[in-house]
């Protein structure tokens, strides 16, 4: 068991941030997740997880430029940190190790 425990939703959010690379702000992340995973995500659920991941050091963020839309509010873009990448890779390794450990017979009947 890794000491960096990552919840299922946390993992998905991290991955989505990585996918969006440089374009990951709140609504974009939600849209991406809804498109790819067909899964309803509320702003509240997402934002809490984003802040938590930031606090844990997997993500950093910075403000973008203000625009005419969005009531003139700036976007906050999220970036995956090196530490975040490492944790994601670790999780993936674990998953793969588990997949590989399944006897072939399980999926072959």
């Amino acid at each position, binding site marked *: 068991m890794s000491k960096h425990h990552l919840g299922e939703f946390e993992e998905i959010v991290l991955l989505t941030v990585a996918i969006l690379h440089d374009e990951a702000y709140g609504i974009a992340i939600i849209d991406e997740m809804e498109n790819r995973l067909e899964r309803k995500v509320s702003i*509240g659920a997402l934002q809490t997880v984003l802040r938590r991941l930031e606090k844990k050091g997997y993500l950093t963020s910075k403000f973008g430029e203000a625009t005419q*839309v*969005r009531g003139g509010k700036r976007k906050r873009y999220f970036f995956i940190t090196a530490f975040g990448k490492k944790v994601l890779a670790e999780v993936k390794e674990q998953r793969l190790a588990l997949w590989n450990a399944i006897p072939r017979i399980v999926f072959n009947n």
Partner: protein
Amino acid sequence: MKDRKSLPPRFPLRFFRWYCHPEYREDIEGDLMERFECRLEEKGIRSARWEFFMDVMLLFRPGIVKSLFGNQKLNSYVMYRYHIKFAWRSLIRNRQFSIINILGLTLGLSCCILIYSFVKYHSSFDDFHADTDRIYRFVTEEHLQNISYTPAVHNPFGKVFREEFTYAEKVARVCTEGRGLITVGEQDKYREAIAFAETEYFGIMNFPLVRGTAEKALSQPNSVVLTESLAQKYFGAHDPVSRTLELDNKIPLTVTGVLKDIPKNSDFRTQLYISYSTLSQYNPWYTDDNSWGGISSNMKCFVRLKAGVNAAMVEASLSGLHERFRPDRQGMYVYKLQPLKDVHFSSLYGGVVSKRNLVVLVIIGLFLLVAACFNFINLATALVLRRSREIGISKVIGGTRSSLFLRFMVETSLITFLSISLALLVSRISIPRINRWLGDTLRFDDPLPTDLLFFLPILFFLVVFVSGSYPGVVLARLSPITTLKGKLAQHNFGGFNIRRTLIVGQFVISQLLIVGLIVIVHQMKFTQSDLGFAKDAIVIVPTGSEDEKMKTLKNELLRLSGVDNVSTCLAPPAAGDNSWSLTFYYDNRNEPEGYDIQFKSADEDYLATFDIDLVAGRNLLPCDTVREFLVNETFVKKLNLASPGEVIGKKLAVNGRRWKGTVVGVIKDFYDQSFHAEKNPVCITTHLKYYRRYAIRLNGSDYGQTLTSIGSYWSERYPDQLFSYEFLDDRVAKLYETEHVILNLVQAFTALAILIGCIGLFGLVSFMVSRKKKEVAIRKILGAAVSSILAIFSMEFLKLILVSTAIAAPLGWWVMSGWLENFTYKINLGLWIFALSFGICAIISMLTIGFQSAKAAWANPVDFLQDE
């Protein structure tokens, strides 16, 4: 500029800005706006606004909401930990005081929890019916010379009300019978409370059936529904439906439905309901549409009024109803509506516990709590003296008043919290015991945790605030210089007068309770010392039939060695609800007297069995029909005759002149009803047809043996019936059960109040003694005797007790004379009662004080003086 229509809803947005952590506010708000704009195009304004609102609500969660204590976090957490740590240390350091405080508070709080659960339980009675506030019971006021109250109505009343008035949604008549003989199968016989109920009864009351419906189950004659537990008792695991029972060996009944068990917070405890159409087979008088003469207390009538109908309106339109059927009885019967919620509390109509008693208990509970808080204040204020140096140093190194106050409140909270936890434990352990001790009528309910969830925090804050705030202020106010110089003395913080006041307050509470206790005990003794008849060792056994067989059995019983005397009679002297009042004609007067006479039929052995004395004339002669009468002294008094001798030989006719006879003797008065009621005129006559019971006076000590032989003789004569017996003293005790329970409770609470007071006194005196050790030592060296030192400590408190007596005596007199108003025959409140309460208080407190002060007085003065 966009128009307002395309903007997000204002309130949710403001709410969001208010709660959101400022660091996140801008970008999340931007996200929200973006979503909103997007949805506005896709789905329109309505759903966009709604979803915006939902998003804001879903964002309201711990990760996003700003901190309660501002964002610039000063690390006050450490401070709280420091408070708690210090509170704990000071509890440990002043161990004796902490224990005394916790003990006193625990006692007071346990009582509060108990009283709360008692009051809560009793006010929950019959609150589970639908639209309880529209359900009423019809009751009747009988206006004779004085008004008597019956929780019942004339037999045809319910029918007339249903047919002629439109106020009711549902009307139901229920005829209850206390002792029906139920036969199950061949052999099993049970005495059971039964009721004949119209189907509407189950539409008014929320007593659901688990099998069948009330409309169907009770529509046919000879059908019966019973509760699950009764079915279990009768038929075991077998299906009860369509099995048969027999009532009084003559009426066959078929089970057509099963009721869910009656909830324990209901006063309508009948478990077996027979269809109303069966009632005419049981007693045709009940179903006679013309029976407007007398009222049987068995015939109850319930109604659920239509919404918006006012009870007073109904009562007004009922006036004159009885006169339509009995024009000769003008204004004699007045029908009233009694709200269902009052049934449990109304003492007029046989309620279980009066609201007044509940209020008394609540007041006692508050008293106990106040006494415990007073203890705390006293001790804590006294303790400030001992802690003055600590406080001084805190202040010098920058403790503010508010932080010192806060620290003290934390300390108080800690003690209160410990006490409440203990009290909860104590009350949980004691409730089953208390219930066993109090008996069934007035019981405590196990409080549900959900109830206490609201009650305990309130109690907690109340106690913390009441007991913590004064000493907290005193402590925070101290000047650091005086405290550090060690010059602080009692008078420096003016608390001694406050403390005196508190002690006086405690003594007032104790004395009030003691006075109450003395008066109640005295009144109970008074009322039960001389009932006017013997009640010990008398067994009441029902008769099986009213014929020659009864006489034979009587003679057989008389031959038993354990039996002194046997009388066959309608009812024993304290009849309770078995009374039968009749109008009567005296002498040769043509008009009946304006009041009723209690009719009792009994044979010639009645007086000897119950030890009732004759004042004039002679006893009845054996006879099977009405020929001679005995009357009581009240009868003579009511007729305004000079001496009992005057009625001897006069004619008396009762029951519409059907029964006539000569008065042959006058007996001493006995208490026929409970002491709340006045004594009635009574007549006793022989009438074989109306003997319902054997009154058997036993001798010797082995009652069990005698009862077994009585039972076997009885069953031999009446093999198809069920032998049962009841001791008369139990029956009499039932008339006073509420008083007994209240007495028990007051006794217990008084003892507790005194105990709490003593605990506080003990703590205070031991503190005083430790302060005055040197003074005592010097006095002893200068030649003071032990007694004079004891006197120094005692005089102060004796004075306080005297002051408190001066307050408690008039207050107690006022309260207790109010209580005695309930009794027709009552004691006088003598001065001795208050003297006694003073004495008790003084002795107990002197003992408490004496223990500590004697220790100081006997100690060797050198021990105290040498340490300097």
